């Protein structure tokens, strides 16, 4: 083989690997996940006591968004092998060959370090430490350790997705308090029924790539039972902001009504069993769970922003 043909091959390979567009890089940031993270982070900022300059609040949100996006890119880098085999993830930029794994690693690492430093310098170092913890937890604890080794992967790993309102709160107050932990716990309890509902009708995908999701390891019956248990815990946790006095009657009523509907959907999955409507019911819970979390945090946001908070008698100001 001549030197010229070797050079041409190298150039052609280089050309193929330089094909990623700006949109592909944006896709690495998991924009849909990022939107929920930004929203819950915003609620943390609005609900926290004290004031924050709008420019600093915007900067905090931007850092949360970029940090979350960076975790997504690092997750796609590490999971590229299994992403390629699952129908839900096979169209991602790395399995499609539009972006090289190394490029995603560099992109994710740069954004991770950049977002944490920017948060520390421009907002405060408590928020920056929590952001670093979030990214580290998602990459090292969830993606690298738990995801492929235990069916409890999304229970413990769910903590990474629960940090954003706590980071928003810390951006305003510079500290972690019981109220921000309550916001954290709502998302923490929400994650298992949300992901297990998805795993119920995508169990085949996870089995194919040996990811030990609960339906694959413990079976669908046990998964349905766990969904119901976590749904009860979730609804109880969703009322913590009222009990702690930083949410009022409007939030309490919304959380209770939405919670009862959530429980009804979880119970319907349990009673349907492996029946022919099983997948449809799991999909319904998965879809509603996204709306549910949005509704809880939106009500909290509106209640604080519009001054609609009517204290529940005997439960704080």
């Amino acid at each position: 083989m001549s030197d010229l043909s070797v050079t041409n091959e190298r150039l052609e390979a280089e050309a193929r690997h330089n094909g990623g567009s700006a949109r592909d890089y944006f896709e690495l940031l998991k924009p849909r996940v990022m939107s929920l993270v930004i929203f819950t982070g915003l609620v943390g900022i609005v609900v926290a006591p004290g004031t924050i300059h709008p420019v600093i609040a915007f900067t905090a949100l931007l850092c949360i968004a970029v940090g979350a996006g960076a975790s997504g890119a690092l997750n796609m880098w590490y999971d590229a092998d299994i992403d390629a085999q699952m129908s839900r993830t096979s169209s991602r930029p790395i399995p499609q060959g539009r972006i090289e794994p190394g490029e995603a690693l560099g992109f994710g690492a740069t954004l991770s370090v950049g977002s944490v430093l920017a948060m520390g310098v421009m907002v405060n170092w408590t928020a920056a430490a929590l952001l670093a913890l979030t990214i580290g937890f998602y990459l090292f604890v969830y993606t690298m350790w738990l995801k492929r080794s235990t069916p409890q992967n999304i229970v413990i790993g769910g903590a990474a997705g629960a940090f954003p309102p706590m980071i928003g709160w810390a951006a305003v107050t510079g500290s972690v308090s019981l109220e921000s932990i309550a916001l954290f716990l709502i998302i923490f309890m929400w994650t298992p029924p949300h992901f297990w509902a998805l795993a119920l009708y995508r169990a085949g995908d996870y089995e194919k790539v040996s990811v030990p999701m609960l339906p694959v390891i413990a079976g669908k019956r046990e998964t349905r039972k766990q969904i119901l248990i976590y749904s009860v815990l979730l609804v109880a946790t969703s009322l913590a902001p009222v009990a702690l006095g930083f949410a009022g009657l409007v939030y309490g009523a919304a959380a209770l009504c939405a919670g009862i509907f959530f429980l009804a959907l979880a119970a319907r999955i349990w009673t349907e069993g492996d029946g022919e409507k099983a997948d449809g019911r799991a999909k319904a819970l998965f879809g509603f769970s996204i709306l549910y979390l949005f509704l809880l945090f939106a009500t909290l946001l509106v209640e604080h922003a519009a001054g609609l908070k009517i204290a529940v008698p005997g439960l704080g100001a």
Partner: protein
Amino acid sequence: MEGEEKKSEGETNPSERPDASGWTPELYARRKARAKAMAWVLVAMIALFFLVTVVKLGGNIAERSI
């Protein structure tokens, strides 16, 4: 060799043919779009750093002891 060259030339659209460095016009266009996106991100970062500096220093400058 010559026959092969003609065949491959006939198969591809002239506007999609790679140049001497192996890059097609489409790849150049993507690189240009990436560079533009990067430029916008840098401009936005400069604006953000400037704004945050003004916000953080603003009060201190106005209220400094002379």
